[in-house]
């Protein structure tokens, strides 16, 4: 085996046998993906619910087609007991109760959720007015024509798959390069390799090769899980642009790891510094929730975070139909970041931990 292959192999084995590392870089982000996937499954399709007490002519006599259309927005339960129905409204189990009394349709709603209450009132008003118009036997003067447009906003899974993936890659690449440096220095492998007939280029390219391979494995597993019908991620045309993006992202996070590994004297110090850097970066970069409402100065901070740019452009190419135009500037920025941070790390680098 060549020096490059055997070094890569040694690093990959060391990584795969580190259960904690595999858990935090692969299993944990996947668990979050699955959890978010389940939690936000029905986020956008929340229907209002009402209870109908006894007979209500305007609802009962609704033509089949109109009733079906109404059912898209409204679930209608039936009961005979008005008191129980009102109790359910109070408890928040349903949004409103409706009954008919002396020719008037009575609606009682809870104000706990103003938006839902408004929806229910609007729906019932249109049903009543439709019935009034039908009762006059006259043709309608105005008509509302509707049609659906493809919405530009993203469904939950389209949003958090790129975000969580970016975070997983940031953790994997930065932890691996920091720990390689700290552990190899502690175990004097760095010194030992200096005394072996291999160039620094071979060692560095093996390290980069293993990290890139691991990042691509993360991408493959994430996309495989998120595109399962249950989670329903729809990949857009240029999704494969995520690969060069992830490669550039991996390099930039490796450079962060190098900087921390060059500075840290022990595994604990490296671990602490990585947590302090990666977690806030993930929050500010919108890995876990949208950051549109961040105060201005925080968005300025986020502009300097490689993960923020990786997340946005991953989202662009994975689920918003973005292309080279979205990916190229980000790739350039990530590589520039890598160059600057690596140069700083090289100045801080020490051979020995003492």
């Amino acid at each position: 085996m060549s020096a490059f292959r055997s070094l890569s192999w040694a690093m990959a084995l060391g990584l795969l046998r580190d259960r904690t590392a595999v858990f935090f870089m692969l299993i944990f982000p996947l668990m979050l993906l699955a959890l978010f996937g389940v939690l936000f499954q029905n986020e956008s399709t929340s229907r209002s619910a009402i209870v109908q007490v006894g007979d209500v002519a305007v609802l009962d006599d609704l033509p089949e087609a109109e009733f079906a259309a109404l059912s898209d927005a409204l679930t209608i339960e039936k009961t005979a007991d008005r008191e129980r129905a009102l109790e359910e409204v109070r408890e928040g189990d349903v949004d409103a109760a409706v009954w008919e009394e002396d020719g008037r349709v009575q609606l009682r709603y809870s104000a706990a959720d103003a938006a839902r209450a408004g929806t229910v009132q609007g729906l019932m008003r249109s049903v009543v007015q439709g019935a009034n118009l039908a009762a006059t036997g006259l043709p309608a003067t105005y008509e509302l024509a509707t049609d659906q447009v493809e919405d530009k906003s993203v469904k939950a899974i389209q949003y958090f798959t790129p975000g969580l993936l970016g975070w997983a890659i940031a953790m994997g690449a930065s932890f691996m390069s920091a720990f390689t440096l700290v552990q190899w220095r502690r175990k004097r492998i760095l010194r030992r390799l200096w005394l072996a007939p291999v160039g620094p280029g071979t060692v560095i390219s093996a390290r980069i090769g293993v990290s890139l391979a691991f990042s691509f494995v993360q991408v493959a597993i994430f996309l495989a899980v998120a595109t399962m019908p249950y989670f329903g991620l729809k990949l857009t045309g240029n999704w494969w642009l995520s690969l060069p993006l992830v490669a550039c992202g991996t390099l930039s996070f490796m450079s962060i790891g190098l900087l921390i590994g060059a500075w840290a004297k022990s595994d604990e110090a490296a671990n602490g510094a990585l947590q302090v850097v990666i977690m806030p970066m993930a929050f500010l970069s919108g890995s876990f929730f949208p950051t549109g409402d961040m105060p201005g100065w925080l968005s300025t901070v986020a502009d300097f975070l490689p993960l923020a740019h990786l997340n946005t452009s991953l989202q662009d190419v994975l689920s918003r139909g973005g292309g080279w135009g979205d990916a190229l500037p980000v790739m350039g920025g990530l590589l520039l970041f890598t160059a600057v941070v690596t140069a700083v790390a090289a100045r801080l680098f020490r051979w020995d931990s003492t």
Partner: protein
Amino acid sequence: MIDNTAAIDVRGLRKRYGDVQAVDGVTFEVARGEFYGILGPNGAGKTTTLELVEGLRQPDEGSAHLLGEPSWPRSKRLLRRIGVQLQASAFFEKLTAREQIHTFAALYGASRERADAMLDTVGLTEKRDVRDDKLSGGQAQRLSIACALVHDPELVFLDEPTTGLDPQARRNLWDLLRGINSTGRTVVLTTHYMDEAELLCDRVAIMDAGRILRVGPPADLIRELGANNLEDVFLQLTGREYRE
């Protein structure tokens, strides 16, 4: 063509760490096939001397030639001909004994068969699937020596290979080292054990405070100075008791 240059030719090496003059003008020569010992108490500068000679660190002053070539700057051609065991065992994270030595073999372009044979030579065949952190002190030292020898180097450096071992493990390691030397390799070893130097080395350099005080075969040193053993030699040279 027979190369008659000395295995090691060291002149005027100096190295300073901050306020500490770790190596303070060291000069010595080692002949091919010789078993050479550097003996001295902790902090004498043995490790630093070895690191300068191996080309691991750049000397402030002086030079070291190995097999006729300068050891600094680093040359891959020379590195292929020397084998080094660092004072602390340098192993890859989470690999078994066999995987460690296979990795080192690949770095030097040696075959896997050769690596397995080396593992057998140091008596670790049974422990080949054990990870480095589960090996005993003596086993780790033997693995480390096996890794240093996997490419069949002409010149071998060992830094305190028997420190921290129990008496039985030390004796086993001594047999191994004598075996390595008897196949014609030049061996340089540092130690702070008098008995080890006396038993193994053709010549010893007695080192203290960054300087070599005296060089010679152990028996000659003892005779010349009218001492009973190397411990007395050290006392006579430095005026203080030898503390390990």
